[in-house]
């Protein structure tokens, strides 16, 4: 399932947010959406999902998403928000079951088969034991994984994640990234919005760099796109950056082979 975005522009009143965005999201590919605050990453997600009206087309294998009802879109594209807490104390299983909503036929909610499907995806993100705990009492990392499990229960081939590692500790950040990478390896098209250039280099197959005024600056392999020049363009206040030289704490499996051999 290839997600195609063509000529997507959006403005809040007279203030332009996205400027003629075009991108292809292919199955099996973990793609990063990288850029400073306020460049319209979340807005781009909302446009793709059809929450905002935009000038442009979003198609999935040739099918125009803008003509579909919310339930139809939700069977094709799932969205993983940043971990949050909500007004009501739902259990972990309840939260994941909500991912089954677009597939429910009956009136009174999920059936036993839906519960079983949710137990499977909870096991997949390593939260099988937390099934009956209250979602809002979990740690931030676990809550993020519950929301990822919910997207899996939604059973879509396209996943959009909004800063899934924001406000998580280092261990949780690595765990979430690895989980997301595995989901892409299983054949899904995954787009992850992130602020961390190193994570893009470590985990992603491709990166879209979104610059000021919502313009797409680069689209390609992270090691070629994330250059000192790009970082300087995106973050002028940072000044000069070095791509190597300083010691970096990183999981061994994400380092290029020659480095891990020497380390």
């Amino acid at each position: 399932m290839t997600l195609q975005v063509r000529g997507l522009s959006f403005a809040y009143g007279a203030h332009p947010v996205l400027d003629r965005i075009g991108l292809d999201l292919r199955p099996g590919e973990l793609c990063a959406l990288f850029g400073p605050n306020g460049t319209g990453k979340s807005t781009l997600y909302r446009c793709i999902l059809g929450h905002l009206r935009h000038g442009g087309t979003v198609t999935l294998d040739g099918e125009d998403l803008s003509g579909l009802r919310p339930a139809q879109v939700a069977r094709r594209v799932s969205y993983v928000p940043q971990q949050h807490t909500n007004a009501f104390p739902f259990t972990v299983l309840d939260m994941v079951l909500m991912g089954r909503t677009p597939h429910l036929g009956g009136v009174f909610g999920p059936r036993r088969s839906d519960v079983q499907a949710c137990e499977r995806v909870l096991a997949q993100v390593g939260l099988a034991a937390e099934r009956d705990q209250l979602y809002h009492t979990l740690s931030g990392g676990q809550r993020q994984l519950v929301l990822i499990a919910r997207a899996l229960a939604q059973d879509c081939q396209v996943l959009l994640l909004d800063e899934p590692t924001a406000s998580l500790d280092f261990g949780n950040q690595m765990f979430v990234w690895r989980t997301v990478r595995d989901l892409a390896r299983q054949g899904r098209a995954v787009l992850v919005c992130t602020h961390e250039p190193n994570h893009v280099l470590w985990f992603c197959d491709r990166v879209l760099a979104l610059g000021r005024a919502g313009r797409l600056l680069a689209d390609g392999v992270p090691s070629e796109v994330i250059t000192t020049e790009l970082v300087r363009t995106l973050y002028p206040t940072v000044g000069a950056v070095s791509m190597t030289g300083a010691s970096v704490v990183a999981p061994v499996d994400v380092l290029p082979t020659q480095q891990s051999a020497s380390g």
Partner: protein
Amino acid sequence: MTPPAPSSIPATRPTAGRGDETRCACVVSAPVSNRRRAVLLVVTAALVLVVAVVSITVGAYVIPVGDVLKVLAAKTGLTDSTNSLNASVVWDMRLTRVLLAGAVGAALACSGAAYQGTFRNPLVEPFILGVSAGAACGAGLAVMVDVPLSMQVMAFIFGMLAVWLTYTLSRVRGERPTVTLILAGVVVGSFFSAVFSLFQYAGTDEQLRRLVFWVMGGFYRATWNDVAVVVPATVIGCLLLWRFGWRLNVLSLGDDEARSLGVDPEPLRRWVIVLATALTALAVSVSGIIAWVGLLVPHAARMMVGPDHRFVIPLSATLGAVFVMACDVLARTIHTGEVPISIITSILGAPYLVYLLRTRATHLGASS
């Protein structure tokens, strides 16, 4: 050192622990299984019948349970004649009252639960949209001016007018964020309250007496005509709200999230608000404003079965019926005259909520 295969799930898992910035604006209890929830529903439904029969026996003088059952059996055609005095007291005075009290309790509690889910705020009640004030204002207008419509119909129309105003005023950039919705409700509610106060200020003594009944609430005017309208309408309204239970769960996560899970928030919210407002206006139209029920009963239900609206809505209906029937028994027995039921619900309601908060609930941050 060999890196692990990319496809394997890493052995390390995020550590278990309490959330650092957990904010959950309501009390929580330990998760309950669906089987236990269903049992609770059946038990409270049976409790509705028991409380109904018991409250028929109580009044200016006590009629034994046996006699009550005999009269009910005779009137429904199961047996033949019975003591005629008791028959009229049981059938025409107390049964109508009890049925109406039960229906009003169910309607208020159900609409409270529905509003809370729709506005993602467990502390919202029918009052927040200005519905109560609007309905009272409509009733007051019927008292003040000679209109061809009945006081009840006016209450209903003005309740719907209030919610429509709130809903329209809260529109911002094509959406209705919860904050502006609630603000608009406060504005609309205070406007209708002011108009109602003006009626009280300008009215004659006779008009004032009728307006005060509306503010205090009561069931002593219950007739079979009221019952014939309110009971079936309440049952249908509550069933329709129940039908939205699962989608209300999804909606309570927020508009964007609901939409990304395939639930279109606007039409759902519109239907739920219209149904809940109709139920509230219906209840207010026959019994006046009865405070606390719409807030308190859904809370109690949530503490018993958790936040799932598929269970909270029906349990609110049964508990609300039991609660208001019991309050009405107190209203007509603790004093020689009639005590306005709103005073009873408020005096019972406030300490009850405190009791639940202090004893039955594991509060946010506390271990469950």
